[in-house]
């Protein structure tokens, strides 16, 4: 991945795509984008594009997988073969298996699973175009899809990946920054409650840098949370007048 050194932050402090260190990529969010699913959402952050859909609460087969006091959660994070520079095999990779797990654990702390004993809530995330930050975009799409499906949650999840490139901490990294940078830290929160539901760090940071990264993340998360609320409200605000 790193065969030559490229400059990721220029002398004016701007990033490779012209953003400031604390600037998000352009965001687009929409809910109820699919017909069949009980809830669905589309999230776009720069060139990262993700679809998520929710089915449930619904019956589990085989029955022995159910839990008597709560719903189980089944989650799949998947990247489609044409989402990356080189074709990705459609079979689940070790990375996708790990991410499915951390995303499920993040969602379990948000959903009121005890309201639906002996059922399953199925959450599917498909990355259709990958340009870094796919797990965070996927998690936001999943939380919007759950809200769209009317499943009670403590809060929405807003998430962003912090990176360290050329020694500078930056918000919402893109693919180039991820590949050539020194660290990648995805973080997801319930913004109103101030609770972290997902936190990973891939790379090396000093303790001080980590505290800075947490602060920077919260700034981005606050903005993304507003986009999410707007996307949900838009579903109900638009009034369609039918011709008589």
């Amino acid at each position, binding site marked *: 991945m790193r065969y030559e050194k490229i400059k990721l932050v220029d002398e004016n402090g701007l990033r490779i795509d012209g953003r400031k260190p604390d600037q998000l990529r352009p965001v687009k969010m929409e809910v109820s984008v699919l017909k069949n699913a009980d809830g669905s959402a589309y999230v776009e952050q720069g060139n990262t594009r993700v679809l998520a859909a929710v089915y449930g609460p619904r019956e589990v087969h085989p029955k022995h997988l159910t839990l008597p006091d709560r719903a189980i959660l089944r989650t799949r994070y998947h990247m489609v073969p044409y989402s990356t520079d080189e074709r990705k095999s459609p079979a689940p990779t070790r990375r996708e298996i790990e991410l499915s797990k951390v995303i*499920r654990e993040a969602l379990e702390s948000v959903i009121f699973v005890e309201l639906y004993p002996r059922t399953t809530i199925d959450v599917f995330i498909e990355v259709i175009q990958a340009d870094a930050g796919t797990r965070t975009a996927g998690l936001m799409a999943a939380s919007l899809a759950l809200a769209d499906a009317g499943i009670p949650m403590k809060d929405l999840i807003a998430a962003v990946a912090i990176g360290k490139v050329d020694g500078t901490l930056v918000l919402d990294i893109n693919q180039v920054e991820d590949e050539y940078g020194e660290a990648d830290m995805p973080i997801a929160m319930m913004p109103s409650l101030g609770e972290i539901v997902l936190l990973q760090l891939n790379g090396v940071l000093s303790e001080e840098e980590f505290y800075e990264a947490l602060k920077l993340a919260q700034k981005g998360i606050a903005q993304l949370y507003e986009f999410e609320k707007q996307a949900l409200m838009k579903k109900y605000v638009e009034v369609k007048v039918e011709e008589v």
Partner: protein
Amino acid sequence: MSMTPSNQRIVSKLKRSSIVSLIKKGLRVDGRKLDEYREITVIPNYISKAEGSAYAKIGGTLVIAGLKVGVGTPYPDMPNSGVITVNAEFVPFASPTFEPGPPDENAIELARVIDRSIRELHVIDLEKLAVVPGEKVYILWLDIYVFDHDGNLLDTSMLAAITTLLSARIPKAVVKENGRIVELDKEVREPLPIMNKVVTVSVGKVNDKFIVDPNIDEEQVLDCRLAVSLSEDGKIAGMQKMGSGTFTTEEVIEAVKLAKKASKTLFSKINEALKKIEEQ
């Protein structure tokens, strides 16, 4: 697809409440302090057929890691670097909840957390493991086997993994026929090009208290945990929130501080074990 596990160990309500109320008072069911590890045993070079190996035991959790070495072609995007592959397996007899079959999401997550920490901190100088740059490089297979599960698999596995790498003696690569053939000479051995040491400390949260090295019963009671990988000079070399609970930002900071403090115990155990084999 990742699914909420339905074959979890069950801890009785009585035991659960005694674990929680003890931790609230700063005590543990097994008499430890909140920031104290269980008894740690590290034995490097445990398997003579492996180029490196280690036996690591924390409390009742037993992990044996082994390193096998070969020569192969490098990845096209890293033509001048050796290759390291980390794999973990939870053998079926290690716990009543483990089943035979390929590594599940827990084993994959554990292996990937360890792999990332080793890679990102440059524990091994992989560029020194190129034999014929662009053509032939050392391939390292680090296999982590969990044989008994008594809680805190990650810290124990990392302890076994890092001790394996630090104590390994790999065969010298001999280049023949203008670099077309590379053979390993098992008679001549040298250590790996080590640049850093790393350990992982899992910090568990129970209400507003934090504990290190949860045992198997405590693991069932935790709200969630944060695994922090640390270098010997205190840099954070990786993190992973595990389990389905949440942390506030203040709690994460507290957990990192506790992990940093507790990492010293692990480093001193590793250094002690390595010193012992050097003296032999």
